[in-house]
């Protein structure tokens, strides 16, 4: 397709996507504002033939919440893609694979959210995996991207095997695919059966969500995909997997034993720590963001764990808090992570590198992108004025309320530890994003590509600013978001637990007040600093010339973290000095630092090695000798005849 044609198709398709998303949002808002019983009980669509015979769909409050996120993500990412795809068009790369898979990917996510039976769910789920795989593979010219996509493909299929097994097992036990029928039959199942199904769901969905240790595909796939796709995958697809935890585990499998909650909490805490630690030492612009997604999924996992524990301890107060924190953080993370991926996309298009060691000084050259990214960073590191803070704050509260209501015992010892984990993660995430922003945007350019960088296409910096605006709006007008969060809560609330309003009461309604105070404070600071004396001089550098090599490197900035957590990160370094005669005169110094994907090396590599070893031994059966094959035949015939006697 020609360049002109390509341009019109890009505008047509992405415009259509934006319009559809906008229309869906408006229509959905009108529909939900009108209210009705369907939010709680669900509204079934096209289900005449019933589950198993036709695809069945259902719309309820929980779905509406995630549909909102999906539509918002769709609209924003499409708007961004409108600008981002221009580069491919200029390179004369065919846009068809992108445009078609983009739509199909979005449609399949709608399918997963609306599915009301196991079969429909699996079908849409597989489509979602497949089309996102194609999108990750869009820049297939780079062998590294092909490898990333392949890892994603394999991992997601292993996960689907488990999901399929669990769903078929449930079908065998209940004779139906419908979620409702499962929920009804669950009380009749034994604990071990439930545990098995739960574990299969946990691993299957956890892989897609990016829980450690099933996360290894995520940093590869999210960084290899084109930036709008990364934004959509990180912001929305991961949340779809979390939605299914609520739909399939919370609502269908029911309360379950206490250890389910502990598992969520433990895996969540592990993901949060491993995610942020790995993120802090990355020097790849997008890989860092991908690891940060793992961290945030971990935080959401802790919230789910807290909710599960509160449910089994009958602590409705903590449960509501945990869920409000969960949904709030889901929205906020979607906004901020999309924003940051868009910022990263702008940098990549401007410099054609993802390596932070080659960036620097971009704030002067790309001020608008930089401003957008700054908003995203304040949000994602959970600094107070923006929404990231409020979500984590409520999560702290939920964990604390959970702990406070416990009788003395081991649980009371371990639960506060997760609060400590959350605090550690918060601190590390600030270090991480200071590095992300500081190394790429501040200081001097570390390479010529960074020096020659130019501000991106207007759409590409306006979209992040829109996202940032929405994030600010969500804090200024929290009651709108809370009304949205109320929708899934009305589905999840079982009977006579405490009213949601009491759980929501204090902290969030006050947030706007806090924000007004903060704005006043900022204004005062600005006014005061304007009046003060400013001196503009050259940076003092002990008298020597100021060169880019005097700055911190991306690796150096977070080196303390890397040294502290050597075991977790699997880092090792090698310093080699070239001395001239004595050890006091140094000619040159080379530093080589390496990071090992610990989980990849300690778990996946041995597992794959074992599989290959086993296959090579099994392969001996297939020696290629006809005589051997015939011998198998003879032995088989005899054995069958003897057994069949």
């Amino acid at each position, binding site marked *: 397709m020609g360049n002109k044609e390509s341009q019109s198709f890009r505008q047509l398709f992405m415009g259509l996507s934006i319009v559809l998303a906008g229309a869906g949002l408006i229509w959905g808002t009108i529909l939900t504002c009108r209210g009705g019983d369907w939010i709680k009980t669900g509204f079934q669509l096209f289900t005449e033939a019933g589950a198993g015979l036709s695809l069945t769909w259902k719309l309820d409050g929980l779905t509406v919440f995630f549909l909102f996120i999906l539509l918002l993500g769709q609209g924003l990412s499409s708007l961004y893609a409108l600008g981002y795809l221009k580069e491919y068009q200029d390179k004369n790369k065919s846009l068809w694979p992108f445009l078609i898979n983009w739509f199909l990917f979005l449609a399949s996510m709608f399918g997963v959210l609306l599915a009301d039976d196991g079969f429909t769910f699996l079908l849409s789920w597989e489509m979602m995996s497949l089309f996102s795989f194609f999108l990750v593979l869009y820049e297939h010219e780079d062998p590294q991207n092909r490898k990333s996509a392949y890892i994603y493909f394999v991992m997601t299929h292993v996960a689907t095997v488990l999901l399929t097994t669990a769903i078929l097992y449930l079908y065998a036990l209940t004779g139906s695919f419908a979620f409702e029928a499962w929920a009804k039959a669950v009380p009749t199942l034994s604990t071990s059966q439930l545990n098995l199904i739960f574990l299969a769901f946990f691993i299957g969905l956890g892989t897609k969500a990016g829980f450690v240790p099933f996360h290894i595909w995520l940093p590869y796939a999210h960084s290899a995909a084109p930036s709008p796709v990364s934004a959509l995958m990180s912001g929305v697809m991961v949340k779809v997997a979390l939605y299914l935890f609520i739909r399939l585990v919370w609502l269908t499998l029911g309360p379950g034993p206490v250890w389910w909650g502990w598992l969520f909490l433990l895996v969540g805490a592990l993901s949060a720590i491993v995610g942020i630690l790995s993120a802090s030492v990355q020097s790849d612009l997008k890989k860092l963001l991908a690891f940060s997604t793992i961290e945030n999924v971990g935080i959401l996992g802790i919230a789910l764990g807290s909710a599960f524990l509160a449910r089994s301890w009958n602590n409705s107060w903590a449960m509501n808090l945990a869920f409000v924190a969960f949904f709030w953080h889901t929205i906020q993370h979607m906004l901020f992570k999309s924003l940051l991926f868009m910022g990263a996309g702008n940098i990549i298009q401007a410099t054609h590198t993802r390596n932070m060691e080659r960036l620097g000084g971009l704030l002067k050259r790309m001020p608008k992108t930089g401003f957008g990214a700054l908003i995203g960073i304040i949000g994602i590191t959970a600094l107070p004025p923006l929404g990231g803070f409020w979500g984590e704050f409520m999560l702290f509260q939920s964990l604390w309320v959970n702990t406070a209501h416990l009788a003395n015992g081991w649980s009371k010892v371990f639960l506060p530890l997760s609060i400590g984990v959350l605090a550690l993660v918060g601190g590390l995430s600030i270090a991480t994003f200071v590095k992300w922003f500081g190394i790429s945007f501040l200081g001097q350019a570390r390479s010529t590509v960074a020096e020659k960088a130019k501000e991106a296409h207007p759409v590409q910096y306006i979209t992040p600013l829109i996202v940032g605006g929405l994030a600010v709006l969500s804090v200024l007008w929290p009651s709108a978001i809370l009304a949205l969060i109320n929708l899934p809560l009305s589905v999840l609330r079982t009977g006579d637990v405490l009213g949601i309003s009491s759980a929501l009461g204090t902290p969030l309604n006050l947030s706007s007040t806090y924000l007004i105070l903060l704005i006043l404070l900022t204004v005062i600071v600005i006014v005061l600093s304007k009046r003060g004396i400013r001196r503009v001089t050259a940076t003092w550098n002990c008298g020597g010339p100021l060169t880019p090599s005097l700055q911190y490197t991306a690796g150096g900035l977070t080196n303390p973290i890397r040294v502290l957590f050597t075991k977790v990160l699997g880092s090792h370094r090698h310093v080699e000095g070239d001395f001239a005669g004595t050890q006091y005169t140094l000619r040159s110094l080379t530093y080589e630092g390496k990071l090992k994907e610990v989980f990849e090396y300690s778990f996946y590599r041995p597992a794959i090695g074992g599989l290959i070893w086993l296959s090579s031994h099994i392969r001996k059966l*297939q*020696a*290629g*000798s*006809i*005589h051997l094959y*015939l*011998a198998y*035949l*003879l032995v088989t*015939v*005899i054995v069958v*005849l*003897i057994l069949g*006697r």
Partner: protein
Amino acid sequence: MIGISDNELNLVLLVLLVSGLIMVYSARVKNALNWWTLQTVFVSLLLIAEGYHNHAIEVIIFGVLLLVAKAGVIPILLRRVLKESKTEWVGEIYLKRALSLVFAGGLTLIAYEVTEPLMALHSGYRNGLAVAFALIFYGLLLMMARKVAIVQVLGILLIDNGIFLAGFFLTQGMPLLVELGAAFDILVGIVIIGILSKQMLENYDSLNVDHMRSLKG
């Protein structure tokens, strides 16, 4: 199907079994082929005799067809392939002729063992079924322990005879159409194998199936 007397039946069965054993033991492909032809003639004769005793004209017709198609056409086709490939010896591999005969004896015992519960009937038929299974086993043994592709074909033919006999004794007369189909099937199979062995000759210049190892992926 009380037609042929026990003695006649046992005699035919003896011929079938012994011809099978001789095929396993034979050193030249041509001999094995001749013995197979003899065996097939006797299978057809068994069918014709059965039809004669039961006054079932279609069984007789089928027996005659079998005689012509299997004992007539197939040996001619195979002999042509033999001549073209200048194959003479069966090419022992894994098992020498004497040892394979011992194995064949063991397989005969197994055949009697596995057919024991299948036929609590007439002693003649009981033997017949056991011989049928023994022939199937011989065929597999022959294919397994010989190198030359033509011997593999003979193994298949031996198995086919065995299956035919087993069907004959178990069902006591399958519909004519099924039997015809089965016979036609093996005929087509042999034609295809003839073509394939020509291909093999062109590629490897011999009919040694060991060359097929290079096809392994």
